């Protein structure tokens, strides 16, 4: 989450990051999935921030967006549903 916040500051500054309303909802360790909440109006910017992350704790890393949803219930269904 620190990596995402740090990139949000870098790319959009404090003003832009404040519009995103980013918060951590859940981290599923076994599947290495993080559920993050954000403002729907800033969704495109948040996706850009997530795509721009190249390091986490000084180690090369990449974060991919698995699913997006308006509700947690449908999001959890999407991420647990096997890919067709």
């Amino acid at each position: 989450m620190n990596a995402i916040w740090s990139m949000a500051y870098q790319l959009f500054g404090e003003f832009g990051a404040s519009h995103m309303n980013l918060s951590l909802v859940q981290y599923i360790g076994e599947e290495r999935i993080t559920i993050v909440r954000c403002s729907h109006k800033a969704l495109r910017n948040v996706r850009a921030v997530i795509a721009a992350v190249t390091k986490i704790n000084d180690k090369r890393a990449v974060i991919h967006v698995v699913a997006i949803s308006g509700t947690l219930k449908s999001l959890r269904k999407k991420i647990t549903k096997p890919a067709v």
Partner: protein
Amino acid sequence: MRKFADIHLHPDLTKKEDIEKIIYKAAELNYAIVGISLPLKTRQSTINFSRRICEAAGVDFVARIDLTPKSTSGLLKNLRQVRRGFELVSVNCLSKSVARQAAKDHRVDLLAFPSINPRERFFDISEARLASQGVAALEIDMSLILQLHYFPRVRILSSLRREVAIAAKFHIPVVISSNAVDSYQLREPRELASLTTLFGMDKESALNAVSVNPIAILERNRKKLDSSYVAKGISIVQRGANCDS
């Protein structure tokens, strides 16, 4: 349903595991088409290997070459050599004269400006005007944005914002690619498209830049490289002694 293409992958061609890894990762990220950058003198075995891996992964393989000529005569010489051998030809425009010549030439598919120095990026209104009369598209490699930080990134984003606005004004297609060297630099197509928000591209244009635009260039070239193609608007439909039947 959109088909997505990343037409600029740059794995180390001497390591087969790297080629395999990047192709499988691209397939996992829902790319239907991948373009691998090959040098001028590529071994046929490398091309065949890449093609086999792409078939196994379920993606379409595109042979691409990146020309970096020092002069217009060098560019013309390279184009004569490579045009029939590669499905995509990109020119890295490091000088104004090369940029102008590449924009005019119908054998060039993609115009790339790899420099981060705004004075060495030559995609201006004159360039756009020339490109609009040709077939070249503007290529934007996202690896620059991902690798740079702070002031260099700010500069490159300013340049890209200006170039994208010029391309839109002259209706020049924009193509977005990852220029990924390894799987860490690959991004899912919609993530690549979302990065364009940093330099002012709208959502629809960004999605077209990773899907419709590169696929249109590829289809046009494949038609031209087909054995039945003669010239623009002319192709051989049937061969043989009795073509009336």
